[in-house]
């Protein structure tokens, strides 16, 4: 099997290497990819959309449909993880351990035993629970607000500098995943429950599609933001810029909460109790 695989790979690779002779040179200004469509984006995007960052202009306006369905793909991936893995844990586990936070006394609760209700005094512990992670917790608690602020900046300033909804959404999602790693899954679920993550990721996709529908209500085609000029109180060119911001916020929300949702399901294999 190994020899056969190696032979197939070498054959495939050498065919590809042979075909590179027909490819344009590295950094060629007149290569096919750089000639037909892209000069229009580079020269016309600022006067057509008032957005200096061409990548954002192409992403959210010229190729709006593509980006909308990419967002839908991400949302579907989150749903797929949920349906594959999620186990409803209505049945209580056989034995549970609760730790009194102030004294450190551990209660061993047998099957069918009464569980302490006050979660501010008792915390459920499991095999993954470690007591000595004060440095990690404090460091993460200090870093996470700045990561989130940077994520919001990346989304909001995506028109003028590298950034946008996808990148900012991933940074925001990563900040919550960092929180979940440094503390534990149960603490994170108190901040952002699974239900919240599901509802807000759906909302993100709906903001995108809703912006498109709003354009249709104002008499233009789907995702033609210039129709929103009256609503936003600006000229049609600036309305495109603002419409892109609305769409990017939707993308950011969808990406952030789908990342968190996928992490919840994968890190705990669907139980959402122990986790990393």
């Amino acid at each position: 099997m190994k020899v056969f695989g190696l032979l197939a790979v070498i054959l495939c690779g050498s065919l590809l290497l042979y075909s590179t002779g027909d490819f344009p040179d590295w950094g060629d200004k007149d290569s096919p990819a750089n000639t037909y469509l892209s000069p229009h984006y580079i020269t016309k995007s600022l006067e057509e959309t008032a957005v200096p960052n061409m990548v954002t202009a192409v992403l959210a306006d010229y190729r709006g449909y593509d980006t909308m369905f990419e967002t839908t793909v991400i949302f579907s991936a989150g749903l797929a993880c949920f349906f594959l893995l999620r186990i409803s844990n209505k049945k209580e586990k056989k034995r549970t351990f609760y730790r009194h936070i102030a004294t450190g006394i551990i209660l061993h609760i047998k099957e069918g035993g009464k569980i302490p209700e006050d979660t501010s005094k008792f915390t459920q512990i499991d095999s993954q629970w470690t007591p000595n992670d004060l440095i990690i917790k404090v460091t993460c608690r200090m870093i996470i607000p700045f990561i989130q602020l940077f994520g919001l900046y990346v989304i909001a300033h995506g028109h003028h500098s590298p950034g946008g909804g996808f990148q900012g959404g991933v940074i925001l999602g990563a900040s919550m995943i960092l929180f979940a790693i440094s503390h534990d899954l149960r603490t994170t679920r108190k901040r952002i429950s699974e239900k919240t993550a599901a509802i807000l990721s759906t909302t993100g996709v709906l903001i995108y599609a809703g912006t498109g529908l709003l354009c249709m209500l104002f008499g233009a085609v789907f995702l033609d933001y210039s129709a929103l000029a009256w609503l936003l109180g600006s000229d049609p060119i600036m309305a495109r810029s603002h419409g892109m911001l609305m769409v990017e916020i939707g993308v950011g929300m969808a990406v952030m909460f789908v990342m968190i949702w996928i992490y919840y399901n994968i890190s705990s294999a669907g139980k959402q109790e122990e986790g990393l």
Partner: protein
Amino acid sequence: MNDFLEIFIAKYNYWGFIIIMMIGLYAMIVKRNLVKKIIGMSIFQTAIILFYVSIGAKENATIPILQHSHAGSVQSAEAINYINPLPHVLMLTAIVVSVATLGVALALAIKIYQQYGTLEEDEIQTIINKT
């Protein structure tokens, strides 16, 4: 030899991507462990992302973000001075989508492990054949 070197120097980027891509393909074909196969798939995707980004490169060109002034003066951009934004747009979405699909792949791997108690392909095959 000199001809070969000329071709190699003009197109060395493609050689890099093809080597990375073949490493990923080899991992997907040969490795028996499903997680290693998933890692191979990620390496394969990375090679394609690099390939697309390198297509948009132009010599002596800068990133596709224009200088913007609020005075309302729209300066004319020469297409030759800015790299091609289109591959960047395509890959920007592809990176995030690849992370999401990686999540689905890992979820499937977890499900297979819960069902069969192993991630080795041949062991799963023997368990399937027994039943």
